[in-house]
């Protein structure tokens, strides 16, 4: 049995690693790793800098009708502020001598300033920041206060998030990032994998060799072999990208001139891995219920989109509700429903203190449901593999599940 499943897994794996998309998604990160490592070592003293000419400072014309802000507006290495009148400013923009100009009204506190340019300025908030700094300095000057106080007045207050657990407080910032990354990664992996898996599952049906292969291997073993093959090839790609991430973190001292480090508690790490594997199998099997009965490539896309849309529900719930209300009734209940668990519970674990029984129960229910839906998908797959014609409706899928 193992040999047969392995034969299918091997073929699926080789099929994908020989494909063009695999070369792009797998070899590209490996090249990136080497490049990051080498570049970080070539320029360790100055830090990591891009090997092309730095962009010149943007020239911004200032038409200050108030005459109050211009004395306090200081040019930087990114923005060069030049005083001019409005006629001159329009001409210079048209001749591309400057990137744009700002018209400051007579009373900048009462009316808005306006920015004019040939293109839409995406860093408009930064320009507003420079004007705000100049306005603060002007207000201090008018009240006879020290202008140097401006920097002190603009100083921001930062908040570090920390979780309180039974064992005491724990740093939460890195964990939240990991939780969000985990949910995004799982969702993207599932969407990508389900497309591959769906096509792979019906490959023999569409190319007309299903009858040739079925005497040699049962449909459930064929499906299992394919699932393992697709997963193995995707995990290769995922590992390659993880390595890129680790290389960046490992070389952060060279690249960003600072260390990036976070710790992930072992229990949460175990939960993440288990939820990922079970969730991936659950969602992929769920999509297979819809895909097994198709008879053409076009129908694969239609059937698959139904499954992917349904999986979007826990994804949106996680990012629009759970992330803000991790311990609300909706979040707690949904994290225990197997279809929501793989995305909702990792997010809750990352941002809130979750009871141990909830984590264990959710994982148990997820494991049982995954096993159940895998069996159902295998059954529908077995019964629908030799069927031709229109894709099955939900009622027909239920009838197939009830059949012997």
């Amino acid at each position, binding site marked *: 049995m193992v040999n047969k499943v392995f034969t299918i897994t091997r073929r699926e794996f080789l099929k994908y690693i020989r494909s063009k998309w695999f070369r792009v998604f797998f070899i590209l990160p490996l090249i990136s790793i080497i490049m990051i490592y080498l570049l970080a070592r070539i320029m360790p003293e100055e830090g990591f800098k891009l090997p092309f000419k730095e962009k010149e400072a943007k020239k911004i014309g200032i038409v200050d009708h108030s005459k109050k802000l211009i004395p306090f507006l200081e040019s930087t290495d990114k923005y060069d502020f030049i005083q001019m009148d409005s006629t001159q400013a329009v001409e210079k923009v048209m001749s591309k001598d400057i990137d744009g100009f700002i018209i400051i009204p007579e009373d900048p506190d009462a009316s808005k300033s306006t920015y004019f340019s040939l293109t839409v300025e995406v860093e408009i908030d930064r320009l507003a920041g420079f004007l705000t700094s100049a306005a603060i300095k002007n207000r201090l000057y008018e009240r006879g206060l020290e202008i140097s106080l401006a920097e002190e007045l603009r100083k921001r207050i930062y908040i570090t998030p920390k979780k309180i657990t039974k064992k005491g407080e724990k740093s939460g910032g890195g964990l939240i990032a990991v939780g969000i990354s985990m949910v995004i990664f799982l969702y993207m992996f599932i969407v990508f994998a389900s497309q591959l898996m769906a096509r792979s599952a019906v490959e023999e049906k569409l190319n007309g060799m299903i009858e*040739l292969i079925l005497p040699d291997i049962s449909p459930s073993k064929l499906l299992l072999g394919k699932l393992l093959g697709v997963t193995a090839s995707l995990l290769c790609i995922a590992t390659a990208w993880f390595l890129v991430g680790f290389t960046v973190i490992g070389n952060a001292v060279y690249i960003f001139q600072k260390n990036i480090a976070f710790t992930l508690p072992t229990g949460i790490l175990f939960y993440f891995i288990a939820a990922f594997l079970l969730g991936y199998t659950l969602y992929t099997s769920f999509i297979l219920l819809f895909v097994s009965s198709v008879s053409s490539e076009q129908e694969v896309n239609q059937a698959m989109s139904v499954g992917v849309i349904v999986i979007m529900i826990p994804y949106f719930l996680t990012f629009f509700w759970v992330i803000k209300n991790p311990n609300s009734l909706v979040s707690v209940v949904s994290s225990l429903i197997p279809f929501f668990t793989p995305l909702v519970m990792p997010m809750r674990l990352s941002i809130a203190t979750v009871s141990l029984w909830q984590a264990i129960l959710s994982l148990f229910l997820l494991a049982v449901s995954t096993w159940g839906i895998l069996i159902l998908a295998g059954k529908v797959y077995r019964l629908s593999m*030799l069927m031709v014609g229109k894709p099955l409706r939900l009622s027909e899928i239920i009838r197939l599940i009830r059949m012997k």
Partner: protein
Amino acid sequence: MLAIKDVYKTFGNVEALKGLSFEVKKGTVFGLLGPNGSGKTTSIRIILSIIYPDKGEIEIGFKKIGYMPEERGLYPDMRIDELIIFFSRLRGMDKLITEKQMEFWLSRLELSDRRKDKVKNLSKGLKQRLHLLISVLHDPELLILDEPFMGLDPIAIKGLRDLVFELKSRGKTVLLSTHWMDQAEQLCDSVCLIKNGEKIYSGSLDALRMKHIKNEIYVEIEGNINFEEFQGINKVKKEGKGFILIMEKKPENFIRELTDIADVKEFRTVYPSLEDIFIEEVGGE
């Protein structure tokens, strides 16, 4: 021996097989004949355990079964040798035996110089040969061929026919399902005619012919005779150098009467062709 006993199979509201029974003896070529939708492929799928019967028994006295289905798809991006090794692994074949069998069949089916070619680059005929190779790779005792002559040119048909005879001479059993009555007639020792999932006839081809024999004789004589003057002749048809005479009853004494008055060069009973029998038995709908 392979025995199908009183097998029933229903798909939704459609009764595909209604108590079908037949036997395939070892070392023979057996034809499963019937019109489209008669239940031939369903019977084959049940024999191969691809699907299961609702009722009935299947006795299979063969350890290894080879199968060439009617629909002949293959993995297009695999090379011929890769595909052969893939199927050998699925069948749990030993590496050395695989190599030996692969060499033999590649050579026998004239595919040796194409072994590194991808399946997608093969012609329809070559794909058919590759399918055949895959079905016999593990040296099966029973080979099941579903519509094997479909889409083949005359040379390929002859090649396949020769192969079936060769397998039979090596003691193998062949079950073929076909619409090609002339090929079935040349190849089969026994047949099963099915219609709407029910058996119409199962047994030897000779017995089927005898069952459908008409009172027809072929006669070739020297000179001319007016056959219509003979009593008991209903119809006379010119056939080649002679005549086909359709008699009222069995022509037991006719030859004696004929030799008394004419120089008879050839005299034989006309057996109905399998095609005629097939049309008579399953046609009319």
